[in-house]
């Protein structure tokens, strides 16, 4: 009996001692490496970085990055979310205007070949260049990846929360004014949006504070998809005089691209009026 206990104690004590020894050697190396990785990610997003200052907010931490003269270069936010399998921890880089520079997955254990799409451009590219006040509506301006819905939806919801926390605390900008179509000066305005095959360019004709015509001037979409989007989206916009239309068609990406192209065209129109340059349009 005593021998049994002694053997077990001896084995576990030796094992614990070995592990403690290895940990003593490797722990600083591991910590240093993680710190290094994070720093090199910071430098990649903010090449002019001179120093950074950390701020903790509830669940997230934010590093405010400054250049040599003390000017703010941007914010690196760190957060974590429950994914399909376990916690996904990630960093999000925002430039000083609040635009997303990059998304960096630090650690995750999502299914290989399925949920790990969160690490890939296929999923990440849709966030690049977005503003921290963008609504990131599921299925409208951002999409989950089918087959990996749980992982990608968790990421999108968490990003949305992180972005609004960042917007509230670090990017004190006025809310984007809603588009006032009635205030638009007459003219034909062009804009473009990213479709499935590439840019979709539109020409929007405004007359008397109303959108009266909407034409696709360039595209690289499959004709069948484009035809479906064209049949559904422009009539909705023209009839409703709104950009708040349902883009859930058989050609969601092309449809969304048309809407964002129209938005870009109209914003251009509005800003031209504010600059009182007026009528400088393609029409």
């Amino acid at each position, binding site marked *: 009996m005593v021998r049994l206990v002694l053997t077990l104690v001896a084995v576990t004590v030796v094992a614990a001692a*070995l592990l403690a020894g290895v940990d003593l050697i490797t722990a600083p190396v591991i910590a240093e490496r993680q710190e290094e990785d994070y720093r090199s990610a910071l430098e990649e997003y903010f090449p002019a970085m001179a120093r950074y200052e950390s701020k903790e907010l509830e669940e997230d931490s934010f590093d405010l990055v400054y250049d040599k003269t003390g000017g703010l270069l941007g914010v690196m936010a760190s957060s974590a979310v429950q994914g399909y399998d376990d916690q996904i921890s990630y960093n999000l880089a925002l430039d000083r205007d609040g635009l997303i520079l990059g998304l960096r997955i630090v650690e995750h*254990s999502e299914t290989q070949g399925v949920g790990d799409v969160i690490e890939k451009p296929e999923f990440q590219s849709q966030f690049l260049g977005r503003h921290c006040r963008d609504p990131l509506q599921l299925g409208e301006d951002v999409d989950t990846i089918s087959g990996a819905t749980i992982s990608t939806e968790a990421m999108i919801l968490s990003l949305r929360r992180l972005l609004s926390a960042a917007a509230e605390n670090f990017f004190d900008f006025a809310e984007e004014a809603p588009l006032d179509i009635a205030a638009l000066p007459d003219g034909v305005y062009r804009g473009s949006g990213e479709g499935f095959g590439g840019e979709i360019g539109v020409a929007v004709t405004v007359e008397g504070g109303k959108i009266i015509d909407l034409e696709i001037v360039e595209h690289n979409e499959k004709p069948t998809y484009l035809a479906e989007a064209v049949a559904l989206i422009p009539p909705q916009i023209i009839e409703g005089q709104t950009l708040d239309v349902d883009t859930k068609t058989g050609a969601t990406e092309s449809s969304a691209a048309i809407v964002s192209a129209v938005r870009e065209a109209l914003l251009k129109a509005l800003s031209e009026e504010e600059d009182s340059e007026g009528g400088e349009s393609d029409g």
Partner: protein
Amino acid sequence: MDNPYLADITRGIFKENPIFRLVLGMCPTLAITVLIKNGLGMGLAVIAVLTCSNVVVSSLRRYIPEQVRIPCYIVIIATFVTIIEMVLQAYVPALYAALGVFVPLIVVNCIILGRAEAFAGKQPVLRSLCDGIGSGVGFTLGLLLLSVVREIFGSGTFLAETNYAVQLFGPNFEPMRIFAQPAGAFIVLGLLLALTNIVFKRLQID
């Protein structure tokens, strides 16, 4: 075969192949064989742990009483796995990032406990070493076979996420996702088991 050491090695690869003959260590086998890279990484880690644990178990076999041998084996195995995990994380971070989740899983890989119990606990150190290498290599070959099939059909790639990645089919190829899912793992494993049974019968290996 006359040479017992050589026999120990080849037995683990063919006659007592952990995956196709003993059907041991199925949990990691089914979980990780989505990509060839994972299969190979897991296999190499198992070879390392299995060889180390076999040697230590065998050299302690006279001092460990029968009644507490299993807890002792588990502690030994877990210790090696944890050491390998820490060393990988510190010095080979690329491999650690690739294997990440799967390294701790090796502890519960019953092929390791199985070899400790069935072989290393009773045999001399050198033969246990050979058995560890043989079983480890056999396990790795089995993982590779499974992951090659699953990656080709499930992702349409070969050696994805490595420097030698090849896209096998055109850009419009829609991979058969089922092969990347657990259900596909069972299907492929079943088919491969049947296939190896036929081959082994023909060759009269056992």
